[in-house]
């Protein structure tokens, strides 16, 4: 699941659960049936779990673009142990 997919899953979970709670309460109140309210809500929870828990393809439409491995080799990490700490900081400042 990519970053946008995570955000979407979180949002969907909250919206679906609150919506099913509202529907369940209204149905239960209108029909004057407490058990029906619980059943409708339980259905909503199961539906929410099915939609938001598995890693559906829908959540992977914006994959992260990692740098190529060759790119990382061209810019090696500065060796901290070779130079004094203060010198290392100055050098990184110049590079920016």
């Amino acid at each position, binding site marked *: 699941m990519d970053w946008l997919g*995570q955000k979407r899953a979180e949002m969907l*979970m909250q919206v679906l659960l609150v919506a099913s709670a509202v529907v369940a309460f209204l149905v239960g*109140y209108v029909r004057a049936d407490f058990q029906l309210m619980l059943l409708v809500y339980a259905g909503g929870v199961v539906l*929410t779990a099915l939609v*938001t*828990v598995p*890693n559906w393809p829908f959540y992977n439409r914006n994959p992260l673009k990692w740098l190529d491995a060759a790119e990382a080799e061209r810019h090696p990490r500065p060796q901290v142990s070779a130079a004094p700490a203060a010198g290392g900081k100055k050098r990184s400042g110049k590079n920016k």
Partner: protein
Amino acid sequence: MHSFGHRANAVATFAVTILAAICFAASFSDNFNTPTPTASVKILNLNWFQKEANGNDEVSMTLNISADLSSLFTWNTKQVFVFVAAEYETPQNALNQVSLWDGIIPAKEHAKFLIHTTNKYRFIDQGSNLKGKEFNLTMHWHIMPKTGKMFADKIVMTGYRLPELYR
């Protein structure tokens, strides 16, 4: 980390939080019910009235209890406990309550009833104060909800009097 287990846990905890909220809402909706219960108790016969060996007065009587408590029931009502108590004043106590009959109403369909019975529990005074005593018969009830607060109320019926003599 945003794994399968993490998301399943998030759904479960949030679902239970919301469940608490709708239970609270269901309990709150009980406040919009304005019940109009009716009750009446007739004393059909005074079977006997005597002083026990230990000096306490005891009465046995036959009662006709009728009530319509169906308006107490809402969609959030589990059951209603109802009891009829004799209430009177003595020099020692401002209020004496003696339960004579009780019952549990499990559903609205049973909330309208007419019962012909002798007192289920013994009507004994702690002393000898019942001769010529004026007393009330009070129907008390406790509404037990499926979720939330328990309500209690009563109907007081006045004007009953015990005889001046044992019989």
